């Protein structure tokens, strides 16, 4: 099984100019603690919106890689976004889902992936190319899948089965408007 923070640190160790969108809770807190940078955008609420936000960003910035760090609970709340992602199929999009099979932060209640649901199969059914959907359970397999996604055209879907650990604090200390402006300033984009 993959340790989510270690995998997040691997992602951040490979970053140069890439843009990262993190879902609320564990994906966001791990990203903040692995490496805080202006090109990281954190959802502070809006469960399910990370994938949609990353799609919009990938459409607007076709020359930069956009990495979405999602969770199983969040993606299950917005499964339609997988279908919408493949309508455009942006080559620069890497959608990573940390699947711990639970709503960890609210008391480890099981999500549907604790039963019969397989998010990698859903991604394929939604229209991701089968050779760009990876289901990984070990760190070496995750590193290999992520390196492949960083080096080639997507969209990629990496379904990472992770241990059910709570992200260690501190939480992201920034206000939503600050996160937005910091990100846009880093891209040289005028707010508004």
């Amino acid at each position, binding site marked *: 099984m993959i340790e989510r923070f270690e995998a997040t640190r691997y992602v951040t160790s490979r970053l140069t100019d890439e*843009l990262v*969108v993190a879902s609320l809770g564990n994906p966001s807190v791990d990203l903040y603690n692995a490496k805080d940078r202006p090109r990281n*955008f954190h*959802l*502070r*609420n*809006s469960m*399910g*919106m*990370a*994938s*949609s*936000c*990353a*799609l*919009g*960003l*990938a*459409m*607007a*910035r076709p020359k930069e890689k956009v990495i979405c760090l999602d969770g199983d609970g969040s993606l299950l709340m*917005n499964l*339609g*976004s997988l*279908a*919408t992602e493949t*309508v*455009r199929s942006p080559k620069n999009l890497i959608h990573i889902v940390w699947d711990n099979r639970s709503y960890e932060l609210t008391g480890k209640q099981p999500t549907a992936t604790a039963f019969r649901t397989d998010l990698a199969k859903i991604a394929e059914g939604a229209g991701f190319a089968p050779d760009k959907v990876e289901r990984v359970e070990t760190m070496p397999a995750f590193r290999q899948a992520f390196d492949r996604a960083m080096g080639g055209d997507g969209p990629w879907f990496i379904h990472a089965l992770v241990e059910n650990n709570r992200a260690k604090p501190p939480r992201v200390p920034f*206000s*939503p*408007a600050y*996160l*937005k402006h910091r*990100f*846009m300033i880093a*891209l*040289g*984009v*005028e*707010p*508004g």
Partner: protein
Amino acid sequence: MPWAQDVVAALKAAHVRFINYLPDAMGEQIFRIVREDPSFELLPLAREEEGVGVVCGQALGGVRGALVMPVSGLGNAINALASLAIPYKFALPMIIAHRGALGEFNQAQVAMGQAALDILAALRIPCIELKEEKDVPKLTEGALRLCYSSESPVAIMISTQVAGWKE
């Protein structure tokens, strides 16, 4: 339809490129003009809430998008508006086709259509209603200016008074 041409002209003048949408008969009046204009790109959504995330992502990347949807979709988008567009201060133009109001035939459209203006008011989202054909260019241009200057969601509600109702 002249009102739809005026709305599209205002979107184009405001440099909106992405038209993210859930369709309905009123919206189609807009899409048929947009499809013929290469300065726009259309993105069909599965649910209106996605559109809030998508427009915010497009804005983060420096490209303007709009969300075009029927009023029922406003109900599907509420938490994303309240937790993403509003606190992060994203300019989010929403072009909303009003059902459940003047001329409505379907009782199941009425509650959402009647509540929509109050819901927007409760969220402090300005709502500009397009009721008269002659006012459409000015009101749409003004609503978009407000949206971008305030970095906030703004609703442009298309009334059946201007767009006609379903028979």
